[in-house]
C-alpha cells in the first residue's frame, strides 16, 4: 500500500530531513512514527500526500511513485488520503457543517450527496449536535474531531495524522485515539506521527522510531522508547 525506497529528503536550506529511509506499510495497518523534534517524522508523512517531494528515492502510494504523478493527478491522490494536523487547519469563517462540506465541494460532489454524507460523518465523530457551531465555539477536542470528519468525508483508504493530539489534554487525546482506532478497524490504514509517549505505549501498535532522519527501530506492537521496557 505504502512503500518508501531509499528515500532522502534535503530541503532547499540544505537541511537533511530524511536519509536513506526504507519503509513498507500494508493495508489496514496502524503505525506510529515517533522520535524527537527534527527527527524527520513530519517530513516522512508529508511525502505521502505529496506536500513534499523526495530528493532521492521512491515514495510509492497505491502502487504509484508519487513524484512521477502528473500535476493533474495529485488532487486525485490527495482525495484517497485523509490528513489530520496538530493545528486542525479548519476554516474560521465557516461552521462545522460547511468545514466538512468544503472537502466534498472540492471534489465536485452533488449537493444532494453533500447533504446526505456530511451529517452522517459529523454523527460518526460525535459532533451531530455541533453542526452549526463555528471553530472558535468548539473545544480543542471538538475541533480535532471536526478535522477528522473532514479528513474522512471522501472515504480515504489512508489516514495521515501529524501530531493530532499535540494541542490536546490527555483525556481528549484518548477520545481522538479511540476514533482513529475505530476508523482503522473499519479498514483505514493509519499513519500517525507523534510525541505522545503514553498513547504509543498503551496502544501496542507498530512503532517506527526515527532520529536524525533515519529509522532507528521498527517494531510490531512496539513502545515509544526502549528505556521504557
Amino acid at each position: 500500500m505504502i512503500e518508501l525506497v531509499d528515500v532522502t529528503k534535503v530541503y532547499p536550506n540544505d537541511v537533511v530531513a530524511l536519509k536513506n529511509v526504507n519503509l513498507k506499510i500494508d493495508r489496514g495497518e496502524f503505525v506510529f512514527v515517533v522520535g524527537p523534534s527534527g527527527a524527520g517524522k513530519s517530513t516522512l508523512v508529508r511525502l505521502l500526500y505529496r506536500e513534499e517531494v523526495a530528493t532521492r528515492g521512491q515514495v510509492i502510494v497505491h502502487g504509484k511513485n508519487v513524484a512521477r504523478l502528473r500535476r493533474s493527478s495529485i488532487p486525485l491522490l490527495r482525495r484517497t488520503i485523509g490528513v489530520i494536523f496538530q493545528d486542525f487547519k479548519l476554516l474560521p469563517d465557516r461552521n462545522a457543517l460547511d468545514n466538512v462540506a468544503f472537502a466534498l465541494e472540492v471534489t465536485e460532489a452533488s449537493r444532494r450527496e453533500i447533504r446526505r454524507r456530511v451529517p452522517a460523518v459529523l454523527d460518526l465523530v460525535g459532533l451531530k449536535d455541533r453542526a452549526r457551531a463555528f471553530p472558535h465555539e468548539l473545544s480543542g477536542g471538538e475541533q480535532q474531531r471536526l478535522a477528522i470528519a473532514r479528513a474522512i468525508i471522501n472515504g480515504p483508504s489512508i489516514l495521515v495524522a501529524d501530531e493530532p493530539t499535540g494541542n490536546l489534554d490527555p483525556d481528549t487525546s484518548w477520545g481522538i485515539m479511540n476514533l482513529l482506532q475505530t476508523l482503522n478497524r473499519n479498514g483505514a490504514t493509519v499513519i500517525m506521527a507523534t510525541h505522545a509517549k503514553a498513547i504509543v505505549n498503551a496502544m501496542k501498535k507498530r512503532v517506527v522510531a526515527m532520529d536524525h532522519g533515519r529509522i532507528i527501530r521498527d517494531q510490531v506492537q512496539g513502545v515509544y522508547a526502549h528505556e521504557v521496557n
Partner: protein
Amino acid sequence: MKSTSLVFGVKQTARSLRQNALMSLASVLTVALSLLVAGLFGLITANLGHIARLAEQQVEVTVFVHDTLPVEAVRTVESQLKALPGVTQVTFVSKDEALARLKAVFANDKDLLAEVEQQNPLYRSFEVRTARPEQIKPTAEAAGKMTGVVKVNYKQEVIEKLFRVTRAIRVSGLAIMVALALAMVMIISNTIRITVFARRREIAIMKLVGATDGFIRWPFVCEGVFLGVVGAGFTSLALWSSYSWAWSGVQRGMPFIPLLPKQPLLLDLTVLILGAGALIGAIGSALSLRRFLRV
C-alpha cells in the same frame, strides 16, 4: 463544470468582492479609464481610415491630350487606357465640357470667363478610374508614356499623406493600448492578489483535501472577469454617448466630413471592449494565483 462548483465559485466571488469593495472599485475605474483611452483611439483611427479610404476611392487619373491630336489618335489613347490593368472606367471630357465645368466653378469671375470663352485653352481629357487605389500610380505612369498625351494629373500625394497619418496614429495608439493593457492586468492582478492572500490558508487547505487547480482558480478568475467586464461596461456607455454627441455635432456643423455611421461601429467596439475587459480580468487573476497554487 458541475453545478456544485458553479455555486461555490459564485458564492466565493460575491464574498470577496464585498470584503474588498474599495480595491474592487479602484480597479473597475482604472479598467474603465484605460479602456476609454483605447476606445477613443479606436474611434479616431477608424474614422481617419474611413475618410482616407473614401478620398482614395474618389481619386482618378486625368489624362490630357494634345489639341492637335486627330480624333482617331484620341480614340487610340482611349482604347490604350482601357487596356491598362485595373482600369475600370474611362470617361472622355471634351473641350466644351471642360469649359462648362470651369464656368460652374468660377461663375462669379466674369472677366476670366469672358477671356476663356474667346479662345478655349482647355485640353480634351480622359478621366480614368481604377479598381484599386494602388493601381492609380502605375496607370498614371503608363498614360504619361502614350503618344499625344500632354500631361497626367492625380492627387495621390494628399491621400498618401492621410494614410501615413492614420498609420502613425494607429501604431502609436497600439503602443499605448499595449501599455494600458499591461497596466490593467497588473492592477487587476494586484486586486485579486489581495483576495488570494487573505484566503491563502483556505487555498492551502483546498489543495490538501484534493481540489484541482482549476477548481481553486475558477472563483478568482470569475472575480477578475467581473471587474474587467464592469469596467468595460462603463467605458462602453461613455464611448456610446460621446460618439453619438460628436457625431450629431459634426453632422450639424461640418456635414462635409464623412464620419463613420454610429452602427455597426459602436456595437462592434462595445463587443471588442467587453471582450478585452473579460480577457484582461482573466489574465490578471490567473497571474496572481500562479504562486499560490504551488502547494
